[in-house]
């Protein structure tokens, strides 16, 4: 592993964590799509600022881009408030408009300079280590790492300092306003943070993959925890892990690093969706299967109780009879009987007759009453 590899991975981790933290609140505010809108429309800010300063590394580009992000949020809300279009439609109308203006401007006027569309869409994290920050001839490391590091610190500080306000405004904006915390102010401050993060990450991973890094880790973490602090930590962790694994995946496949990172966030989400302990698909299927067997066990015991001591008990209370009487498949009947046997509720005689244990009888009677 070369030093360049280390620098790229470090940058990838910083980008991923910076995106995942505000992403948590985007997901909770049901504004996931806004990240898509912002990450695209910031291009217009970059292009316009570039025309003014004619320097792709100028800090004004970042400021202008972030401002365009906030402008996007404002325009979407303005359009939505006319009540002529729904919010998702408003998003889909605003950001392509801004993005397409930027695309026209680039293709028409900036064709010769270093602002090409591939880089816009996919980023160029692999080249990040070649753009150094030098002060007085001293090499301080990749520029992108400094920019992204600053954004990460800003995000962490903002969330730490305004955790309470962000939480309250996200959970109950009405109460927040009544208590004197302006939800509108918090909203726009937060969207500025998202825009700034998108601008920084845009440089490394491009406009499309920013969305994956912002939304997939929180969405995965949301399946694993139900506490906000854990959600933030887990999202950061999932983002960081996806970044590193993504880097090595790209190495192995000789493919785009940004693409592999985003793929890994998707894979992590898929794993969480399938295998999350409580909310995962597998856990859900198993829980339903268990409930089915447990309920069937209760039916079985009540059935046995009803026929106990009766003339037909010998015929009714047999496993093979259940198939006919309770309409269970032979396989299912076997499973239910075995489950009840294991729980000590039922015993099977040598002749295959089913008898309730004292515990089973009590249980069945109890269930019949309630």
């Amino acid at each position, binding site marked *: 592993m070369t030093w360049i590899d280390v620098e790229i991975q470090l940058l990838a981790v910083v980008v991923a964590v910076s995106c995942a933290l505000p992403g948590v609140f985007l997901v909770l505010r049901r504004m996931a799509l806004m990240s898509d809108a912002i990450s695209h429309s910031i291009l217009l800010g970059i292009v316009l600022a570039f025309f003014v300063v004619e320097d792709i590394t100028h800090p004004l580009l970042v400021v202008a881009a972030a401002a365009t992000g906030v402008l996007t949020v404002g325009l979407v809300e303005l359009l939505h408030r006319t009540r002529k279009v729904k919010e998702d439609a408003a998003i889909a109308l605003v950001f392509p408009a801004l993005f397409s203006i930027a695309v026209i401007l680039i293709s028409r006027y900036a064709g010769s300079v270093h602002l090409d569309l591939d880089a816009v869409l996919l980023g160029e994290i692999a080249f990040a280590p070649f753009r150094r920050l030098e002060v007085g001839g001293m090499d301080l490391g990749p520029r992108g790492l400094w920019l992204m590091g600053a954004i990460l610190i800003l995000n962490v500080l903002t969330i730490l*300092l305004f955790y309470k306000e962000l939480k309250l405004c996200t959970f109950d904006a009405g109460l927040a306003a009544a208590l004197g915390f302006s939800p509108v102010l918090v909203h726009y401050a937060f969207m500025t943070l998202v825009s700034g993060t998108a601008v920084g990450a845009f440089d490394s991973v491009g406009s499309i993959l920013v969305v994956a890094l912002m939304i997939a880790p929180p969405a995965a973490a949301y399946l694993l925890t139900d506490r*906000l602090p854990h959600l933030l930590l887990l999202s950061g962790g999932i983002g960081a892990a996806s970044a590193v694994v993504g880097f090595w995946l790209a190495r192995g496949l000789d493919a785009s690093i940004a693409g592999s990172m985003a793929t890994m966030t998707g894979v992590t989400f898929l794993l969480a969706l399938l295998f999350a302990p409580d909310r995962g698909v597998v856990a859900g299927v198993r829980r339903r299967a268990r409930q089915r067997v447990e309920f069937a066990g209760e039916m079985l015991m009540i059935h046995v109780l009803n026929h106990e001591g009766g003339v037909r008990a010998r015929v009714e209370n047999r496993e093979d009879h259940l198939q006919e009487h309770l309409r269970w498949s032979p396989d299912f009947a076997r499973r239910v009987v075995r489950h009840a046997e294991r729980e000590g509720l039922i015993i099977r005689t040598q002749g295959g007759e089913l008898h309730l244990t004292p515990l089973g009888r009590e249980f069945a009677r109890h269930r019949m009453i309630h």
Partner: protein
Amino acid sequence: MTEPAIEVNDLTVAYHERPVLWDMDVRVRAGALTAIVGPNGAGKTTLIKAILGLVSPAAGRIRILGRKYREARREVAYVPQRGTVDWDFPTSVLDVVLMGTYGGLGWMRRPGRKERERAEAALEQVGMEAFAQRQISQLSGGQQQRVFLARALVQDASVYLMDEPFQGVDARTERAIVEVLRHLRERGKTVVAVHHALQTVPEYFDDVVILNVRKIAAGPVAEAFTEQHLRTAYGGRVPFLQGVAPSPPATPGVQESPDPAADRRGTFSGGA
């Protein structure tokens, strides 16, 4: 008469030039339990929100304890409708109740041990102390409502504004809430609640405001809560109209009846 807890003068609220509240004058008696009733779309929630400064009125003046809301904020607690928040939000019951302390803390300061103790005490008041660490999505509707109530109690305000606190709750929660309301009144607090179940208005509340965009009637239940006023508000389709209100009002002595159930029977079977 003492100074009203809330005074609303000439209040008009409009959404897109459509009036939701029209020239409303309301005086809420301090230290009393006041119900706001009216049909759907009558502007009940809007009235609460206007008092809280959450919607900006087209005209009118609102004073809480003689001051503007902005200056009286610490004295006002708010219980929004339960359905206005996302109960899947990743947080615990205690954490939601703690939100009631945020106003007193101001920006950036975090709740500490003192706030936690107050939140726990409020949970105990609504009988939810055992649920403090529970994830809020695991609560029943009634439990959610009690958590919201605890959050308002933590604010330790003088005026409590509640938007449908009894909406869709179980009998146990309803009793718990009534208990809390009476306890608040004993301590001299003012409670204003949007209320839907007309048949419980005389039992639970002292005063009533009946509205339908305009104010129809307001005052002590015995005087204002009449069949005629309700008919005006609900356009003849009064739910539970069967003797819902005494008209003319029952003798004041009925209020003192030692058995509240008998009191209710007396009130409700009359007009049928």
